[in-house]
């Protein structure tokens, strides 16, 4: 967890303004295999260290963000709007 999150739209704000949804994971195409859907719906890696997570700026701009952070050191490496996450090369 971090104390402050720098929202790309609103600037640096306290964590109480946000809610957290869990691992940032692109939704699979509706036609991909059962296994891929199963993995998307039920399986998570629960990594120790750096990972990317969905945060909602619920008491701010109401945008969904991807927070790239380390769950051991609590360092935040970057915060981006979720609309641009996981869509590279689509």
């Amino acid at each position, binding site marked *: 967890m971090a104390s402050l999150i720098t929202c790309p739209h609103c600037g640096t704000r306290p964590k109480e303004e946000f809610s957290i949804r869990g691992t940032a994971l692109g939704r699979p195409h509706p036609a991909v295999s*059962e296994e891929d859907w*199963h993995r998307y*719906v039920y399986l998570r890696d629960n990594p120790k260290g750096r990972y990317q997570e969905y945060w909602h700026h619920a008491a701010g701009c109401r945008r*969904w963000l991807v927070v790239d952070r380390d769950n051991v050191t609590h360092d935040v490496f970057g915060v981006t709007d979720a609309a641009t996450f996981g869509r590279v090369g689509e």
Partner: protein
Amino acid sequence: MTSYRLGNAGSVNRGQPLTFTFDGKNYKGFEGDTLASGLLANDQMLMGRSFKYHRPRGPVTAGSSEPNALMTIGTGARSEPNVRATVAELYNGLTAVSQNRWPSLTFDVGAVNGLLSPMLGAGFYYKTFMWPAALWEKLYEPVIRRAAGLGKLAMQADPDRYEKSWAHCDLLVIGSGPTGLMAALAAGRAGARVILVDEGFRLGGSLLSESASIGGVSPADFAAAMIEELEALPNVTLMPRTTVFGWYDDMVFGAVERVQKHVGTPSPDLPMERLWRIAAKRAILATGSEERPLVFGGNDKPGVMTASAVRTYANRYGVAAGGKIAVFTNGGSGYRTAADLVAAGVDVTAIIDARAQSADAVPDNVRVIRNGAVVSTKGRKRLEALIAERSGFQEQIACDALAMAGGWSPIVHLMCQRGAKPVWSDEAQAFLAPDVGAAFIAAGSAAGQDRISACLKDGATKAVALARELGFAAYEMNIPEVEGEYDPAFAPIWYVPGARDKAFVDFQNDVAVSDLGLAQREGFRHIEHTKRYTTAGMATDQGKLGNVATIGIVAGMRGVSPAAIGTTTFRPFYTPVSFGALAGTSRSEHAAPVRTSPLHDWAKKNGATFVEAGLWHRSAWFPREGEKGWRDSVDREVKNVRRNAGLCDVSTLGKIEIFGKGAAEFLNRIYCNNFLKLPVGKARYGLMLREDGMIFDDGTTSRLSETHYVMTTTTAYAAEVMSHLEFASQTFWPELDVRFVSSTDQWAQMSLAGPKARAIISRVVEDDISDAAFPYLAAKPVTLRGGLKARLFRISFSGELAFELAVPAGYGEAVADALMEAGKDEGICAYGVEALNVLRIEKGFITHNEIDGRTTPDDLGYGRMLAMQKADFIGKRQSSRFGLTAADRMQLVGLKPVEVDKEFMAGAHLLKEGATPSMANDQGWVSSVCHSPTLGHVIGLAMLKSGRERYGEKIVVWDGLRGKEVAAAVCPPVFADPDNRKLQE
């Protein structure tokens, strides 16, 4: 009573005398005193009793690490236990009471524990109260708890208020001694926004306690001049009486400011305490260092205190700790203390130095015993003499106070609260601050510097560097000349051998060296185990004074370096923080916001009883005269809706306006059923699924124009659905042109239900609302008579002919009044959520009782709504997975008691007749139950294995919680108007 107040020494305000009481006795002190210095000035050395053995205790320190002098301050609702007298600022009329003694501080029955001490060693509780286990709850725990409480809480509501605030700065300086003042000034002069925080009520830190000459003036005068300049800088904020208690992520520091703790009559216009979160770009830890007590036999006698405490009482408060003071030292601090005391005219009986030699200056006519040790002390409620030993020769030295100097430990707690461990230094013989990065650095004696001159320089240099890093043009500071400072170097001695009495490491918890030895022998060798087995460091002072000695002694016992033992874990809070400060304004009725509907006042004047549903206060039923209970009212309301008409406030349902060219496609993917072709002017019931195929929420969505929809959600899930829509729009399908606005609070919405609903509403609405013009599921803007624009929906949650009318919130009450007036002749009544619930159960409509996260559309009888031909919708892929389509899933059914006068309740489980209650035999469970006034008996909705195939079966409703069993018949879940004739009327 002797006065120990020294002539003119110290910086208390002698022109401002104060009176206070301790255990009912009156005392006099001065403005600028602490409670402890005020008591010492009046020859009151005995200030408390230890926790376990109830040994008499006096203060060991003059600061916040105090383990002994804990008292209850204040009276009535404002009485506060466990206040450290050594930091409590004296005020006129202060009332203090001693703790942990009965019947009185001087005669304490609990002291008998001391006689039993051979049996009460470390691990005593673990070993003694193990069996029989049955006695633990009834006997051991209550007895131990009664004996063990430290202080008593005021069992009254706190009359004061508290608040929270944020502060932001370039540089936070924690501590206002020589290091902190120089750091704050260096950065302040450069123009940086500086916050200087100190836990004390007077800024200056150790400068207030030391004798030397800085730039030609006394340390206290030097501090005063620095503070004057700082006060004049608009970019510098000074915060005395403020403790930084925690260091959190992203350079956010937690601090508590004691705004009015030092005031006899607090002002109602100010909070008692203020909780700060300080976001700092850089921070300097200038918290100084703690003088270590020495661990020798009888070291807990009232009158034994650290040498720096004795110096502080003399130099800052003008109070002699005793009439005849001895010194036991391993370094320069003891000699400086002796010199200061001699200068103040206090008799110093001897300096006992553990070292063979030293270069420290000995004051004239003071005897020094080198290579000496204190092995025992005499006296009960106050020290009377000590036994010194040198090379086997023992002698008794009379004294009424003993200053002990055991070396220094930098105060590095804050830096170690986020995982970093302090680092042992052989050179400094202390644990030093860890490297936690460039943003937060230690300076001065917190960083191992040991002299005032070095601290001044270190604070200035580090602050200049940090200010420059932040882009400020900071200039090197002139460091004033310091004359007459002493060398605080010391030769460590962890345990003084030859003890003839108990030698304590943790005063408050009565942990002695022998307990540490026992812990090692019994295998609790890891320092965290030693801590918990002996309770060393677990008292309210959290081992600020004793932990280093504990580690040093355990290292000595094991023959290793303290580095090999390591420290226990540091956590916030540095010192105790009151619950009041942590709660701030969030208490009592302000703990959670109250949401009321725009029709709240309408409901109130119609006599509603309200019920809390989440944050909402909803009208539950509307009692009338002669009704004996809520059931009477609810039965009447239900019957009246079915016979005439009723008006119900449904404003709390979530309402989301949806706009955009992509809205139709978006809704089609959000709901499991079809929404693409919903015509303008129509409402449709929809089910939203989670991606795992379970129902997430339900409600109606109406199309008001090609690109404008309004969605209703359940009351409970309004916020979740809004987030869900935003998530889907922003992360799944950002290419769809769609936007959302929550309008729950903008509309007053009322449901008018019953056979006479149309007749009533047509008196208020201008538009044609005949069945032909406004059929079932019509949803259109309408104009009310008088011109108000509104929205009308022909939807029903009762099974009756019903309309929902939405008007702008501010008009809600007036429109509801108009409807009640218009319906008077038709027999309209107001009905609440209880009747609403009965009406929906009779009709078999579902709520979150049924949508509990485990049910699919098919489970609840809505299987045909699943539009599997759609290319995509949330939950589609998992809806067809194995298990979700199994024939033996639980399905929604109705239940009726076989004997109509029998009742059952929600939560009960279903069993086949004759089956023993077990998980394996479980057939399902009851989700919703009500008394149906329409049918005249209890009815229920339930989830039952393969339920739809079992209509007519007799089943047992087993309620293990209430010890009840009722036979019921399984039936379809719709009890009233199963053919929906009334909806179409």
